[in-house]
């Protein structure tokens, strides 16, 4: 091969084709291959791929009862698959056309309740039948062969020559000598890599600006309202009952940290009541208000057992004793539920005296510092 040919469009060398095939065409002439049977060719190719067919359990005798039966079974499976597929289409397309409407607007009709189950049944049966047919075909009608394929270990020749190519390329690039380029490459890589990641900084938001985790919409004079927005007076509740209340601000009932439980204690509970230090005046008469949000994982603690004065979180079973300043008495929670200081305004409705004096909801790293 010469490399002196420099005419435009030339490949720079003599134009002779390379070896025709990757297969061993030198060992097996076309005439030889043509004289072999299809089965022999199959085995020859397999052997060339390192696969030896050791043993073939032949398929059932053509025309035998075994074969006819298997063919019937496979045929039945495929036919059923088609039938069920059409039934699916009939239900899917026919509903609301020649079949009753599937829509739930007509709630209560048997058909609308059956629509989805029928879709599932027919599609499920159809697809399963395709699978069953294929498996039956494989098991009953295909010859079962036992083939052995050799595993090859890595070749030392390959490793050494590939290594030489890689290391050679590195050396030829001259990089080992050109220290300045290597070092600047490292610096460049670090810089460009970080630069490409930098836009993710758009996601970062300071959690401490304005203390969003430590504040709620409660403030002095904000009324306690029910979910429907109605304000509450003392005496609206039976002793021993609990009511969920929200700050009387727009969307207050959907705020994730403002939910509060207004509990009217029974007389004997009032006697037992031991509020947390410095929070004795947070209650109003026999009313106490505690945060609805569990201090463990933030779920609403809404299950109240009057008998034991216990609040239970249904997510992780933390339990709080209302007469002990909502102290956790069982389960994974560690902090008492924050208490909301309440009083009554001029018109006789409950209002908050201030926001919660501590952060509501789950604990976090610097919570005590806020």
């Amino acid at each position, binding site marked *: 091969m010469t490399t002196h040919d420099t005419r435009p469009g030339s490949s720079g060398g003599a134009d002779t084709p390379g070896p025709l095939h990757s297969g061993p065409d030198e060992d097996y002439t076309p005439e030889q291959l043509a004289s072999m049977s299809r089965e022999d060719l199959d085995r020859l190719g397999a052997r060339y791929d390192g696969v030896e067919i050791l043993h073939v359990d032949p398929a059932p005798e053509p025309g035998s009862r075994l074969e006819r039966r298997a063919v019937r079974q496979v045929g039945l499976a495929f036919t059923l698959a088609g039938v069920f597929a059409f039934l699916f289409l009939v239900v899917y397309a026919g509903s609301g056309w020649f079949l009753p409407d599937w829509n739930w607007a007509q709630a209560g009709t048997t058909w609308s309740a059956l629509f*989805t189950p029928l879709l599932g049944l027919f599609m499920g049966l159809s*697809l399963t039948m395709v699978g069953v047919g294929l498996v039956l075909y494989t098991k009953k009608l295909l010859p079962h062969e036992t083939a052995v394929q050799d595993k090859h270990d890595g070749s030392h020749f390959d490793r050494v020559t590939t290594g030489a190519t890689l290391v050679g390329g590195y050396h030829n690039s001259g990089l080992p000598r050109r220290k300045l380029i290597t070092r600047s490459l490292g610096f460049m890589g670090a810089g460009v890599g970080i630069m490409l990641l930098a836009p993710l900084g758009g996601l970062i938001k300071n959690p401490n600006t304005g203390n969003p985790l430590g504040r709620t919409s409660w403030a002095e004079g904000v009324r306690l309202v029910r979910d429907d927005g109605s304000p509450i007076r003392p005496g609206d509740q039976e002793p021993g009952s609990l009511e969920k209340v929200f700050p009387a601000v727009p969307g207050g009932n959907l705020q*994730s940290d403002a939910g509060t439980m207004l509990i009217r204690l029974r007389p004997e509970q009032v006697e037992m009541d031991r509020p947390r230090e410095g929070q004795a005046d947070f209650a109003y008469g026999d009313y106490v208000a505690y945060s609805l949000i569990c201090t463990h994982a933030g779920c609403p603690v809404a299950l109240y057992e009057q008998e034991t004065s216990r609040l239970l979180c249904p997510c992780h079973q933390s339990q709080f004793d209302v007469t002990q300043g909502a102290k956790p008495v069982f389960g994974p929670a560690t902090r008492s539920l924050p208490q909301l200081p309440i009083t009554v305004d001029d018109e006789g409705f409950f209002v908050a005296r201030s926001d919660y004096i501590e952060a509501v*909801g789950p604990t976090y790293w610097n919570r005590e510092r806020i």
Partner: protein
Amino acid sequence: MAATATLPGAPTSRLGKAATEFDDRMIVAGPVRRTLNKVFPDHWSFLLGEIALYCFVILLLSGTYLTFFFDATLTEVVYEGSYDPLRGTEMSAAYASTLDLSFDVRGGLFMRQLHHWAALLFVASIVVHLLRIFFTGAFRRPRENNWLIGVVMLVLALLMGVTGYTLPDDLLSGTGLRIISAILLSIPVIGTWLHFAIFNGDFVGTEIIGRFYIAHVLIFPAILLALIAVHLLVLVKQKHTQFAGPGRTEHNVVGNRLFPTFAAKATGLLFIVFGVCAALAGLAQINPVWLWGPYNPAQVSTFSQPDWYILFLDGSTRIFPAWDVNLPGDYTIPALFWPTVVVAGAMFTVLALYPMIERKLTGDTASHHLLQRPRDVPVRTSLGAMALTFYLVLAISGSNDVLADKFDLSLNAMIWVGRIGVIVLPAIAYVVTYRICLGLQQHDREVLEHGIETGVIRRLPNGEFIEVHQPLGPVDEHGHGQLAYGGAPVPKRMNQVGGSRRAIRGFFSPVEEPSAVELEQRGEGRGLSAADSDRQLTSSGRPSEGGRPSDGGRPQDPRD
């Protein structure tokens, strides 16, 4: 080359000629033949990973369908759809579009449930596949890299599950999201920053569903798809493992070629998995979000459980004691951090590193392609049982409120059962499993030495009753078998060694001639009589290595 078309033996049919033309351009005949000839070993447990793969296909198809209708925004809308009980309710667009998908899209509910069922089955088949790999030692060198990829895929599948669970924005998923938010907040130092980066502010914010949506439909599936491709390529490159058996060595694979047997079977399995998912999707209702209602931070339902694969995390959260760590400077490590981040992190780290840990402890750095029977590696099997028990106690604790309610138990007692059980039961499981493994080993060796119990009782002249045993191979002068245990199942019933002929096929009436079956039996030499040909398969030179213990030859005469 045009010349190829005229070579003798070149195809003459139209299809054949077209194939030749194609190969002229693409040169694919060689690789295609190599692929078709690839040998796959045959064992039911090798199909578990395939089931996971097919579930993923179903998830891609059904998930794509769902994206046509789902609106991943938290904009407040008033529901005006077909479902009466919620009409006029304020809810997020995400929840409203989920309701529309369920009630106003033809077949939409079916697709939603198909997606959910396929997801449950996806994770389940991954976990069972992982257990199969673990207990048979298929993760050993050279397959550690594929084990690692597998563990990453499992974590991704869980993340896919969690993000998908959150999308409908119903009451249950909202509660789950709140717990995710609390878990993020619980991470020391960076927790609040991480939370604000992901949620774009305090819980719940307005961005989170949109962000989870992109993660769920684009980022995680793309990574998962890439990893699946790598997982399978590595598998093809390294070839399959196989159980020990006749002719099976460390240097070969015995089974069926890809085409047609394996391909047909695998396609059959794909359709059956798809069919089962479709049937479940129609017949078994799952996650009826319209019953839970839209998310409201002040509400929660009892029996708030996540999907089964996250249950263990919920359980660990429930039973972990209330241990806040208060550091100087008023910093706190919340109790929630330990059971969710630390325990889960430790579980997955140990899982991911297990191949390296075992390699270190046993000093076994050799390449392995033959699988082990769990009984032959009692320590690993017992460790696995221990881990599984730990996991199950956590998962059961995740639903301890349901158990307490349904079985009239004390909830507090259930939590203590979990707390004590999670420490004590794994240890018990270890010991019990270890003994069982040794017992099973012992029995295999007994059968190899003394033969199979025939059920025939003989009375000796001295009046003693003994059971006649059928030796599996040649015996020495004391009547003891000489076969060594080769890591393959030992036949333990007469029929397994050809004690009787195989049943004649046919359900109501025979479809085979009894005489033909008898002939076939003689000709093929099933059971022990197949030994001669079996022996030739064993290239290792050691008669029992990788071979069935039955390699010894024809059944000997029954002896005492």
